[in-house]
């Protein structure tokens, strides 16, 4: 049957023929085109905005500034309502829009945007962790936005502490202490963000490539003062999202413009504007780890400072989730992890594949290597000695380890040829990482079994490339016993599909998969009843439907839901429904003269419980690995002293190409059917990038003898480290 087979991608045909419609491909009658106006500096006081010249351009319909918006300025965000629709009083980061021009064509909008005169005065800003913590630095966020927060006169949004045992009195034979940094990187989805809004009857409709249509609906309803039912979100399949399209960006702005002008309004960002809109949270992590002589961990003491941007977005949760699993997948008797979420005058950081795990694994895995070297223990062996066993409560009081993780480590080690002879200039590394899977929230599905035996599945998941549509169809086909091709999945329209919390945290296969499965089971129960009533217990489904509905037709409707309960006392608001565990192993060759690196072989192992579609799982895990190679080898947003992004755009922000691939890549799966999703599946698709950096860096260390604790491992940085060692 369908489960466990590599069915072709649902929607694949449209994607290879160019007929797949992304938001920028939608054209509406009478549509206006929007261009944003921004300043070429980071933090600045807006003295005045003169829109007269822009408004005088033929074809310009509206120029919106903060002054034209409702007062007080509407603010929004997934957790904190701190982001204004347009900059008010000052810009807080390079590229924050101060005005928006709506015109009959994009050329006119662009020309008019240039004519909006913004008098401004550049102000000193906060661009680094050190500056954010310096009491002399300017405040990024107005204290009034957090009136009851004792930290509102600092740039610290929150400070959280987790831990157990007693780190202070824990005994250790070896203590390693190091500082690790992880850079700002940007999502670089190939689809730049795009938004369309149109007034519709007594409400508004918005087309957006969001991963989270229902949150979008809620936030738009709040900003616009409309009932939820009057906001219709068309969540078109994103052209890559990776967390960057999870939370509202400029949807409130285009919705307000559509209502103001009475015309459909379209805003398609440039890639540069997209870089200025979303990024991964950067950080500095100070790790102090105690080891016993046999390599077992005695304590973990981690202090992390994460640099968010100018608005909180979802960054605080990224940071909390990272910190909660700061010790990794290990058995740690004593732990103290402290994390601070810091504001800065930079692009608001948001969700990004791996959600804080790549940052913290960079630290805990590099610490393992450091200890292995100092204790003379093999780097794979030291991990095996510390890995939590299946069923072990490695996070006291929380979901126990839900996989046999050592199996993954051995598999990766075998595949990379661990312990076999190395050619000169080469080295190998291996690293692990674990992420808390989705915790709370509900997913609902409605399945309609039609009178001819085909079925329509309504699911609020977003298919952003991970293949949710394919996998959900496989689940329904399997449950209903009908061919995969007989199923249509309807997604992404809040007026049609039932609620889903969001497409994030690798939750869809587990949460929506279960909801679809339960909706199908609901149908099966109804069919069983029907068969009993018709005295045809063994009749095939199609015959049963014909007999039941005859010439007047009809359908059987099944409803299913799956939810993780909210637990207010839990640090994450709920226990992880599963863990995403990954092991990465890499072999590299370093050119010591130039610092350039050749990736010889790269292996990822994902513990997925059950691969419902093995090809889809492998392509995602391998894809994640390629993305991980980006932040490991070349990606970083560079700022100048005024907070301007120096490498804005595809020319100087480099991501991997086909030529940057390892010579050999392998994605291996561990399937023990031990997950909470359908057929024992777990979430997947983020793992491949969570341990890339420490695995590759470990290989570089073996090849060269130098240890690098800052990413990315650019040729220059590797060369510099080698040079300093030689000096």
């Amino acid at each position: 049957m369908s489960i466990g087979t590599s069915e072709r991608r649902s929607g694949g045909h449209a994607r290879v023929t160019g007929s797949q419609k992304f938001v920028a491909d939608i054209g509406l009658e009478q549509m206006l085109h929007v261009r944003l106006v921004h300043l070429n500096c980071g933090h600045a006081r807006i003295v005045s905005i003169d829109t007269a010249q822009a408004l005088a351009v033929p074809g310009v319909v509206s120029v919106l500034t903060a002054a034209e918006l409702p007062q007080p300025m509407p603010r929004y965000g997934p957790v904190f309502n701190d982001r204004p629709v347009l900059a008010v009083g000052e810009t807080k980061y390079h590229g924050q829009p101060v005005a928006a021009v709506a015109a009959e064509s994009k050329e006119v909008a662009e020309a008019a945007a240039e004519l909006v005169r913004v008098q401004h005065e550049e102000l000193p800003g906060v661009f680094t962790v050190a500056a954010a913590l310096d009491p002399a630095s300017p405040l990024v966020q107005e204290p009034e936005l957090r009136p009851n927060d004792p930290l509102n006169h600092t740039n610290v949004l929150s400070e959280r502490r987790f831990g157990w045992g007693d780190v202070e009195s824990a005994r250790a034979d070896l203590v390693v202490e190091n500082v690790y940094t992880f850079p700002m990187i940007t999502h670089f989805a190939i689809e730049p963000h795009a938004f369309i809004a149109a007034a519709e009857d007594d409400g508004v409709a918005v087309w957006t490539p969001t991963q989270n249509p229902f949150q979008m609906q809620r936030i738009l309803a709040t900003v616009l003062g409309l009932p939820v039912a009057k906001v219709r979100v068309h969540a078109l399949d994103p052209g890559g999202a990776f967390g960057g399209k999870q939370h509202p960006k400029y949807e409130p702005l285009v919705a307000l413009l559509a209502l103001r002008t009475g015309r459909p309004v379209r805003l398609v960002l440039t890639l540069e504007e997209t870089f200025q809109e979303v990024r991964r949270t950067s950080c500095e992590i100070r790790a102090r780890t105690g080891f016993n002589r046999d390599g077992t961990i005695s304590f973990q003491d981690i202090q992390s400072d994460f640099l968010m941007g100018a608005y909180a977005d979802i960054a605080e949760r990224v940071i909390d989730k990272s910190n909660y699993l700061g010790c990794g997948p290990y058995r740690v008797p004593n732990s103290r992890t402290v994390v601070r979420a810091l504001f800065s005058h930079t692009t608001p950081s948001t969700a990004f594949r791996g959600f804080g795990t790549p940052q913290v694994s960079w630290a805990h895995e590099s610490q393992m290597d450091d200890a292995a070297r100092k204790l003379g223990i093999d780097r794979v062996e030291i991990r095996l000695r510390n890995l939590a066993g299946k069923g072990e409560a490695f996070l006291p009081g929380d979901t126990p380890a839900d996989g046999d993780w050592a199996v993954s480590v051995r598999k990766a080690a075998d595949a990379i040829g661990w312990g076999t002879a190395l050619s000169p200039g080469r080295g190998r590394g291996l690293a692990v990482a674990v992420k808390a899977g989705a915790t709370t929230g509900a997913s609902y599905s409605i399945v309609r079994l039609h009178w001819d035996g085909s079925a329509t599945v309504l699911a609020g998941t977003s298919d952003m490339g991970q293949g949710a549509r394919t996998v959900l169809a496989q689940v329904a086909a399997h449950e209903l016993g009908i061919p995969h091709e007989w199923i249509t999945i309807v997604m992404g329209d809040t007026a049609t599909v039932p609620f889903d919390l969001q497409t994030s945290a690798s939750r869809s296969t587990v949460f929506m998969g279960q909801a679809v499965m339960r909706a199908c089971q609901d149908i099966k129960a109804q069919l069983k009843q029907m068969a009993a009533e018709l005295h045809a217990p063994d009749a095939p489904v199609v015959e049963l439907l014909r007999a039941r509905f005859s010439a007047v037709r009809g359908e059987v409707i099944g409803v299913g839901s799956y939810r993780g309960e909210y637990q207010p006392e839990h640090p994450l608001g709920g226990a992880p429904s599963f863990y995403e565990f990954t092991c990465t192993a890499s072999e590299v060759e370093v050119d010591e003269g130039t610092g350039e690196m050749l990736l010889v072989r790269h292996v990822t192992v994902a513990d997925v419980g059950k691969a419902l579609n093995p090809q889809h799982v492998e392509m995602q895990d391998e894809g994640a690995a390629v993305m991980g190679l980006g932040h490991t080898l070349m990606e970083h947003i560079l700022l100048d002293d005024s907070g301007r992004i120096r490498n804005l755009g595809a020319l100087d922000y480099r991501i991997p190409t086909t030529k940057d691939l390892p010579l050999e890549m392998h994605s291996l799966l561990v399937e023990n059917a031990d997950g909470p999703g359908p057929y024992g599946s777990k979430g997947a698709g983020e793992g491949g990038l969570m341990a890339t950096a420490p695995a590759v860096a470990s290989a570089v260390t073996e090849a060269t003898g130098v240890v690098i604790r800052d990413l990315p491992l650019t040729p220059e940085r590797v060369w510099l480290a080698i040079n300093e060692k030689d000096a």
Partner: protein
Amino acid sequence: MQPFAYVRPATLSEALTLLDEHGPDASLLAGGTDLVVALRNRTLRPKVVIDLKRVAELRPSISDEEGWTTINATSVLTDISEDQRIRARYPALVDAAVTVGSAQIRNRATLTGNICHASPAADTAPALLVYGAIANVASVRGTSRVNLAEFFVGPRQTVLQPGELVTSIALPADATPRGATFVRITRRRGVDLATISLCCMVEATGRTQFAFGAVGPRPFLVADESGLLADLDVGDAAKDEVLRRLLTQASPISDVRGSREYREAMLLVMSRRALRLSIARLAAA
């Protein structure tokens, strides 16, 4: 992109007259891979764009004329790098040409455009410099030839005067036996702008030339006439001394692609490597 007039002259004299008439208000269009970006970014705001692709005298061609291999202004990099004569005579130019952008870029970008754009990091410049290329220049006032070593003035600046355009690039066809190598440092293996680039040529006479890109305001050429660099019996330390002397003309800066220190260090590392390879290629020639 701001509005502009688009003209498509059929002859060189028409093109030159248009260029003369519109002066600084005109931009020349060959492959467009640099121009269209500048138009979109509004760093260039011409009133007239003169497309040279239909000018009869400038049509794509690679020809042998009186001891020169002449590459016409609208010849694209794909055709140049696939041409058998170019491959046989100027292998380092081919090595450089295939690093320019992607297949899509090389299908549009012209060699002449790469040179006239005068980026300090232009990949083809170092190879053209060591091969002794010249630019054939025309204007309504007549024609001239400019040695490429004198062509570049600074970033995006050439010796071309208003009203002048390059009709072709020509390389000496006959040459003593030689070995040449183009190398560069980039941030990734895929398509990238050079952090540094260089071309080394060792001639049978013992003369050794180096040309460098991305390490100063303009690509430049230096030579060692002593024969020491090409000499198999001279040790690395002595060669390094000569290389360091040649490299004193380099004045790299720090930017998003790399620091001055890294560029300086890579100049020596890559010069050594290119020299060794060139000597080996000369021996094989």
